[in-house]
């Protein structure tokens, strides 16, 4: 097993090496401007914390080693030293300010959903996702497509053979590469969370409210995520699969979807928000 080797290597290596040993122990490869910033921020904080840890606990373990009674250490009797106390209050403060600065920039950037190239409304249900492409008129539902009989005791059902067990849907959300996509997220019953790590998005869908966020995938590919907020029995079974395609492929996909939709003009989705929220 490749992963086992990674783990063995990781445990043998020191802590800093762990963070670099591969994506298995770190945030998955970031694919949007925001998630890249997130990745960078996380690495920065990780290194800062590791440095503080090494210094502070270096001192502590030195003291534990050198000032043992069994080695004949006699206790000194000093306490309170204003200079030291001021220094160790100020230094962390400065370190925090240094972290806060880039973090503030990223927060402002991720909150700025203005001027999108397209808007998708995402509605969460127990336990599926509905996507309305507000510009292109496409509408689709996405549910888990892992066969039910794979979920259950591996002894009964054989080993899990499906590569994307639990992380696959019947209809993927298709988006064009390089476009700023605004998501209007809501839910229809309980709170859910639209979470795709590689896109740097994690946003609750709150029943009765629209919350917005955005992403811009810079690379074609398939990005997988899951519902991030407990929403009942099948909370573990409502994955999100985003497929980023070239704008041409995207246009083709939209056409195809529209043709499908026209065929099966769905009359049944008149259920409005209010009907299910009101009791």
């Amino acid at each position, binding site marked *: 097993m490749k992963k086992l080797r990674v783990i063995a290597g990781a445990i043998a290596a020191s802590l800093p090496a762990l963070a670099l040993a591969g994506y298995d122990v770190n945030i998955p490869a970031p694919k949007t401007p925001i998630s890249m910033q997130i990745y960078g921020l996380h690495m920065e904080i990780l290194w800062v914390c590791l440095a503080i840890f090494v210094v502070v606990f270096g001192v502590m373990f030195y003291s534990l080693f050198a000032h043992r009674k069994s080695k004949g250490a006699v206790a000194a009797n000093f306490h309170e030293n204003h200079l030291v106390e001021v220094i160790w209050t100020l230094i962390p403060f400065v370190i925090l300010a240094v972290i806060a600065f880039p973090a503030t920039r990223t927060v402002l950037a991720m909150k700025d959903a203005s001027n999108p190239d397209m808007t998708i409304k995402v509605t969460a249900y127990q336990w599926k996702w509905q996507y309305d492409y507000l510009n292109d008129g496409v509408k689709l539902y996405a549910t888990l497509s892992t066969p039910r009989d794979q979920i259950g005791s591996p002894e009964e059902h054989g080993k899990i053979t499906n590569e994307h067990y639990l992380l696959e849907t019947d209809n993927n959300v298709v988006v064009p590469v390089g476009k700023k996509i605004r998501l209007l997220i809501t839910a229809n019953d309980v709170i859910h969370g639209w979470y795709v790590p590689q896109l740097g998005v994690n946003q609750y869908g709150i029943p*009765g409210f629209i919350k917005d966020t955005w992403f811009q995938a810079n690379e074609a590919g398939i990005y997988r995520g899951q519902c991030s907020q407990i929403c009942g029995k099948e909370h573990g079974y409502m994955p999100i699969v985003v497929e980023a395609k070239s704008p041409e492929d995207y246009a083709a996909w939209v056409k195809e979807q529209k043709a499908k939709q026209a065929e099966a003009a769905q009359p049944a989705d008149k259920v409005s928000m209010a009907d299910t929220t009101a009791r």
Partner: protein
Amino acid sequence: MSSSSTHDVYYVPAPSKWPVVGSTALFLLAIGFVSLLHFGKTQAYVLLAAGFATLTYMLFGWFGNVISESESGKYNAQVDASFRWSMGWFIFSEVMFFAAFFGALFYARQMSVPLLGDVDNQLLWPGFKPDWPSMGPYNATEFHPMSAWGLPAINTMLLLTSGVTVTWAHWAIKKNDRTQLVLGLAATVALGLIFLFCQMTEYGEAAFSLATGVYGATFFMLTGFHGFHVSLGTLMLIVILARSLKGHFTPEHHFAFEAVSWYWHFVDVVWLGLFVFVYWL
């Protein structure tokens, strides 16, 4: 602060069955209430009745103990100070309890209702106008909120006056003027009862209910919780009145009285908050 000027010993009560009785009462009430919500009514009423009976038994027994300990002079100055600290902190906890409900009111008015009417939410709630008072976007209809200048204004006067009468009684107790003490207390109790009566009338006349959106919910939660506190306060005042009639309390030693008057002032102040934020603005 720790007073050791009195060299007598801090009174530690004897083992007592009341705590366990009280816990039993609350347990009965809890399962009775759950049954009321989910199972057969008869069974629920039996449990609730048993719970209330046990609670009453406990309250009489426990407070009876405290009163007789107090009257027999077991509580020295330090114990008295303990009671003062504890009543102060208890009232603080009540303030925070109300703060949760006031927080809900402010949140609804400043955040949730305006949000529901913003541009994005037009997708979900087309045409909703986020004015306060609001019953929310789903089947929003006209309704008449409670006006501040009828009964509520009268109630404000009643409570403010009762704050004066209870202070009058306090002044009397310090002068050891039993007649005025009883008069002041009786007036306060009466004002409290009238307040409660007005509040009931107001509820009866209300053109909306607990279910009238977030306005109805915050209105009844805040006023109801306050009304519950007024009822408790009135009950406590009645007990103090009865004790005064029995000749309890001295000009120096009457913390039970003061505790109840603190509580009463607290209920009064909360009402002012209600009057301003629930009825008026």
